[in-house]
């Protein structure tokens, strides 16, 4: 059960933190269509967070709901991927982060649709529809900007290079992953790599971007070891719940 709780927080914390990062763009996007798209994506991710963390709280059975998990834990209890806590940077970094993640997120959800845990399968099914659209959109934009002007190409390649070291963690399993996979509850991270590689190679190819050669991967987020950025993000995200612990909102 503790494994399941951990696995669910890995899913829910990742959508939460990415949703938060995306929501930081609100009102500052380069065109109105992107303001709309980013808000929509953040909304989807926060919605998925409610489901994953809600289920995590249920599984834990200690009376913590999704909000308690989102707003009352400190950094080391979060299990999100390091990739999603990277700062937004310019719009190219935000977009590339989204694409690298979407290309993993979709096969992950497809695999979770086959979970032996019906609750997980149901959430994955709902989320999968949203994320299929996220991937379509982020892949399309990566292509258009990679194969756009010299500057847009340079920025997208720079974003790719900068984020590449944070992509590998998505495919690094640990003992928890293995046990969850053995029980048919969640796929092993490694099993998602091939499809991701295919998507990445196809899209980067069309985008005229060069896939970095290094396979070094930063890790630790899934185990609660985060970057310095995480603590700053939480000061903002959790402010009201921390400052007014007795309030209902």
């Amino acid at each position, binding site marked *: 059960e503790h494994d399941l709780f951990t696995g669910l927080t890995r899913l829910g914390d990742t959508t939460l933190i990415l949703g938060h990062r995306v929501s930081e763009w609100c009102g500052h996007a380069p065109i109105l269509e992107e303001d709309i798209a980013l808000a929509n994506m953040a909304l989807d991710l926060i*919605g998925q967070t409610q489901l994953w963390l809600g289920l995590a709280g249920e599984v834990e059975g200690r009376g913590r709901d999704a909000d308690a998990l989102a707003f009352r834990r400190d950094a080391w209890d979060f299990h999100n991927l390091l990739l999603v806590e990277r700062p937004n940077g310019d719009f190219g970094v935000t977009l590339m982060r989204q694409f690298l993640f979407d290309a993993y997120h979709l096969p992950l959800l497809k695999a979770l649709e086959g979970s032996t845990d019906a609750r997980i399968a149901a959430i994955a099914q709902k989320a999968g529809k949203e994320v299929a659209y996220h991937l379509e959109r982020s892949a399309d934009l990566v292509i*258009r900007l990679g194969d756009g002007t010299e500057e847009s190409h340079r920025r997208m390649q720079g974003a790719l290079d900068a984020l590449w070291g944070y992509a590998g963690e998505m495919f690094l399993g640990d003992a928890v992953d293995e046990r969850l996979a053995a029980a048919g509850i969640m796929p092993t991270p490694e099993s998602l790599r091939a499809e991701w590689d295919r998507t990445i190679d196809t899209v980067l190819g069309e985008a005229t971007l060069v896939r970095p050669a290094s396979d070094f991967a930063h890790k630790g987020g899934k185990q609660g070891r985060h970057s310095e950025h995480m603590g700053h993000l939480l000061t903002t995200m959790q402010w009201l719940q921390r400052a007014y612990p007795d309030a209902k909102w």
Partner: protein
Amino acid sequence: PELLAAFQARIDAGEKIEPKEWMPEAYRKTLIRQIGQHAHSEIVGQLPEGNWITRAPTLERKAILLAKVQDEAGHGLYLYCAAETLGVSRDDLTEQLLNGRMKYSSIFNYPTLTWADIGAVGWLVDGAAIMNQVPLQRTSFGPYSRAMIRICKEESFHQRQGYDLMRAMATGTAEQKAMAQDALNRFWYPALMMFGPSDKESIHSTQSMAWRIKINTNDELRQKFVDQTVPQAQYLGLTIPDENLVWNDEKGGWDFSEPDWSEFYEVLKGNGPCNTDRMEARQKAWRDGEWFREGLMAHARKSAARRVAAE
């Protein structure tokens, strides 16, 4: 003059004017200004609410706020499209916003200082906006009228959500209640200002009303807003910051104090608490996004060239 008379006759008969039909140049210009300002307001209006999205206290409230801001950006989009049917491009309008030649609603030059302000914006600001916009569903220009119908539906949803947030605060802890009251104190008069100065002061009103670009007078709408809002505040247990607020049986409405119009003109001049920050935020977004927009255009040109080459 004959055209003009026919045009006015159509309006008087309640017909809609469509983009390709003849219209007086002044009608077109007035509409562009009004629709453009309205669109800009939706865009700039993302900022005070966006200020709290990253601090929303629950996932549900965060989702609601995200959905709301998304709707607002969407409203901006409809309205720019409506303006475009009058022959002005979105980029033109944006440029006029950024260089200060076009305005946006002054209300967004006030800051959102506490979470309760998000409630107050929904309840009072969207409330006042709806009061202004509902009649515009019947405005004479077709695309504008249709955009308004769609927008009003969503806005009234936002207003209910804002009121619900306010209710949670007003019935919460002492601190929450204080935040709610403080938000009402700060947003009450700016909300009243949203209807504009008394029509006695307003030059453009008569012509706009004849053209059915404006349907009610500012004072009518302000009265309606006060009459609607006072009982809502009472229900929340909050006090409207107006010592002169009193029920007037004769007119069947509330008597209330005028806002401080010198403040209104000061904010209009650029001296509101947030004018500079808002403009800077929009200018920065536009500047930082230049490479993105150019990248997309370059790609579109390349794709088109490839398609031609392939034919």
